């Protein structure tokens, strides 16, 4: 790998894999968006997006290497987003 000092090469493995995985997932999403083959394809696109988010949380932000309490706060934010969305949609989807 160009520009990466030898001492870093072993450590650069995970970030590199993360980048490659995210770029592949992103291109899949872009392709699906550009072609738009089916009306329900958005489900696949959402799944791919969630996968990218999980990859970044797990490997780039190294959430699993943190103490339990830090992990809890990582999860807490997403849980509260879920509360906000679900209870608001109880209203909008039943109008």
């Amino acid at each position: 790998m160009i520009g990466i000092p030898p001492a870093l090469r072993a450590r650069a493995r995970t970030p590199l894999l993360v980048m490659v995985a995210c770029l592949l997932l992103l291109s899949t999403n872009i392709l699906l968006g550009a072609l738009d083959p089916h009306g329900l394809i958005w489900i696949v696109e959402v799944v791919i997006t969630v996968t990218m988010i999980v990859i970044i949380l797990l490997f780039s932000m190294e959430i699993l290497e943190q103490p339990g309490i830090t992990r809890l706060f990582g999860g807490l934010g997403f849980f509260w987003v879920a509360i906000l969305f679900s209870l608001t949609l109880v209203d909008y989807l039943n109008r």
Partner: protein
Amino acid sequence: MAEHAATVGVEVEEQFFSAEQQRHVATLGMWVFLATELLLFSGMFLVALVLRVLHPASVTAVALHLKFWIGATNAAVLIVSSFTMSLAIEASKAGLRRAMLRFLVATAALGVLFLCLKAYEYYRDWAEHMMPFLPGRPYVLDGDPASRLFTNLYFIITGLHGLHLTVGICLVLGMAFFGRRAGFLSRHQNRVEVLGLYWHFIDLIWLIVFPTLYLLNR
């Protein structure tokens, strides 16, 4: 020439007992802050979703006017910048100060590239009359009043994300500036890690913004 590894550590501030405690505090503080940031952005994602539920046709009409390929390129740019940020963190952990500086500058450069592409996108929006908030300037979807809502929301979401990214670039450049001094890594190594968390988070937010605005509504 290979760089010699410097000692790595943190200087303990007076309110702490140990360096380990101080590291934990800094990282936890950033995670707690990022949880609040997530809720900040999700408020806007909620508005996007509700608009989609209330006015699906207008939202699709706007999404087809957005510059899909610029948004997609920008997503790729940020993924690469996250990679260089990760390398800067790894270099700092290994005590390789000059490598860390190089990767920090590369990260900031990619951030600036994102902003340039974004600025060009805004320019194209302007040229294509997609700025309904400008008084006196005609709006391309004028026959569809509800579409103004989603167009305006697009500017607010991308604007707020751009603001966060600008702050991130300043912080990365600041870190590179202070990181020039020898001994930086022996006193403040964990600051690079904490900043890295913020940067990855901005990347993560864009990976949600991109589908929310450009992709899912096509």
